[in-house]
């Protein structure tokens, strides 16, 4: 066994161990370091292979990549993490797609290798455009609403099938390189089509899925290059992305196909109309502060609105102020709150909230009826009781945080506008609900002031 093979095994071991340590916050940083070390070992191992000669070019490329990559990581605000992941995914996928292309023109391999190559480039190219589209939607450069038109499903399928057919033709006869550009164009186009009908609320699932594609693409590259390390790392990535997207789907009670082809918020019919004039209770910061102060236990439920308003630090101050007054404050985290899996956890962690205060949905729901106040900050669909009561609702069956069971529900919200699912929220009209209208950050700030004054 040569040196680089040994190093490759070491690297793979590093990745696996790294992922294993990710399972707990206490060991997770060690996990990242291990995975980093694994990557370093992998690169060194590759450079030590006898057939590598172009050290200068490689060096320049690596330095250039690091120069671009590092600032992205350092200056990206925590609310921008989903976008960063999307764009970074596009880069990774681009790399593997380009490598596949280069291999193809260089080797024109036959049989199995060619098949793996086509899989690699197909997944690679479609992930590139899909990730860029996802980034655009997250960054709100593109409209976040699903773009739908008649026959969309058919067009999408036709594009994908055409790409696959051409791919197979190339596999059968690798010499026909005039087909290859068409294949690339079709794969890229399909990536765009794939994301068009997907709405903002489904982005967590999609990002996880694209992560999976990027991993599978690396995995296929491993088969094409006959490189075991690529296969292992790619498969790890592919399966983790896949599991995450399955978890996300389950959290919304929707099937995979539904997310990919659904176009959320378009099917609404039963909900909506005829609810205009219903009475809503609202309160000022002063009144709300009084209620919070006298409560024994408060559960804060953050949503994407908190991220948009950058209110996480103020929320933490509020929690601190209440804790000081003897109130038991905890945070309830819905699996799909925010724009990517675990988004809320990261934001609250950034704001220095101790992670043992972040409670998952299954654990907090049974305790909701014993909770005095559920304070909802910028969340909507994940607390909508319609998911449990109205079978005609587009979110019917989706597990929700049972905020409505709390003795008092307070909702900080800009207006009565609808959430991403585009449906009215019955919760706001309940007698035990108090609406606190205003920007999440501004309102929380005035709550803190009132508490301090009291």
């Amino acid at each position, binding site marked *: 066994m040569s040196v680089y093979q040994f190093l490759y095994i070491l690297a793979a071991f590093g990745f696996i161990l790294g992922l294993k340590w990710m*399972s707990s916050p206490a060991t997770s940083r060690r996990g990242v370091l291990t995975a980093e070390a694994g990557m370093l070992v992998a690169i060194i191992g590759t450079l030590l292979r006898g057939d590598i000669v172009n050290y200068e070019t490689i060096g320049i490329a690596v330095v250039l990549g690091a120069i671009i990559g590092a600032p992205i990581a350092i200056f990206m605000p925590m609310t921008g993490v989903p976008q960063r992941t999307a764009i970074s995914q596009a880069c990774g996928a681009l790399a593997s797609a380009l490598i596949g292309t280069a291999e193809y023109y260089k080797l024109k391999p036959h049989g199995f290798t060619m098949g793996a190559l086509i899989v690699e480039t197909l997944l690679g190219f479609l992930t590139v455009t899909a990730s860029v589209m996802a980034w655009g939607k997250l960054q709100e450069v593109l409209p976040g609403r699903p773009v739908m038109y008649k026959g969309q499903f058919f067009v999408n399928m036709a594009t994908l099938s055409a790409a696959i057919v051409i791919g197979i033709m190339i596999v059968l006869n690798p010499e026909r390189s005039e087909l290859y550009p068409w294949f690339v164009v079709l794969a890229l186009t399909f990536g765009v089509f794939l994301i068009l009908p997907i709405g903002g609320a489904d982005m967590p699932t999609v990002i996880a899925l694209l992560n999976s594609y990027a991993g599978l693409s*690396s995995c296929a590259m*491993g088969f094409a290059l006959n490189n075991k390390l690529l296969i292992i790392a790619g498969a790890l990535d592919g399966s983790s992305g896949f599991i995450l997207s399955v978890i996300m789907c389950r959290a919304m009670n929707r099937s995979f196909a539904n997310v990919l082809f659904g176009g959320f918020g378009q099917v609404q019919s039963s909900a909506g109309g005829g609810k205009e004039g219903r009475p809503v209770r609202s309160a000022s910061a002063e009144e709300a502060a009084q209620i919070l102060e006298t409560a024994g236990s408060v559960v804060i439920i953050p949503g994407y609105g908190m991220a948009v308003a950058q209110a996480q630090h103020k929320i933490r101050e509020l929690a601190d102020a209440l804790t000081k007054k003897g109130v038991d404050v905890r945070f309830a985290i819905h699996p799909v709150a925010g724009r990517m899996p675990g988004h809320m956890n990261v934001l609250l962690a950034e704001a220095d909230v101790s992670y043992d205060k972040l409670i998952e949905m299954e654990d907090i729901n049974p305790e909701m009826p014993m909770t005095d106040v559920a304070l909802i900050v910028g969340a909507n669909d994940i607390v909508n009781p319609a998911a449990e009561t109205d079978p005609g609702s587009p979110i019917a069956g989706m597990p929700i945080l049972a905020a409505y069971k709390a003795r008092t529900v307070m909702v900080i919200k800009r207006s009565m506008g609808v959430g991403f699912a585009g449906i009215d929220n019955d919760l706001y009209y309940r007698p035990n609900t108090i609406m606190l209208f205003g920007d999440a950050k501004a309102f929380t700030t005035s709550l803190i002031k009132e508490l301090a004054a009291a």
Partner: protein
Amino acid sequence: MLAAFLGFELIRKVSPLLHTPLMSLTNAIASISVVGAIILSGEKDASTLTRVLGFIAIVSATVNLVSGYMITDRMLKMFKKREPSGK
């Protein structure tokens, strides 16, 4: 296959608390494709096309790699228990 199974087992254990860092970590691991890029573009008899594509590939894979690892670490640094005020 073995790796996929292993991946399955490993990920299932990760608490939802850490899903975001987990994703950016696996995202960074995906940039293992840099290895493929190096192999391809580093060879003696590489054509210009291969070199150009390989060069771009290495750059973008490194962007992914560096930013992926760094931001994961940045996120995890924030996950800490606040002992005095807790419990």
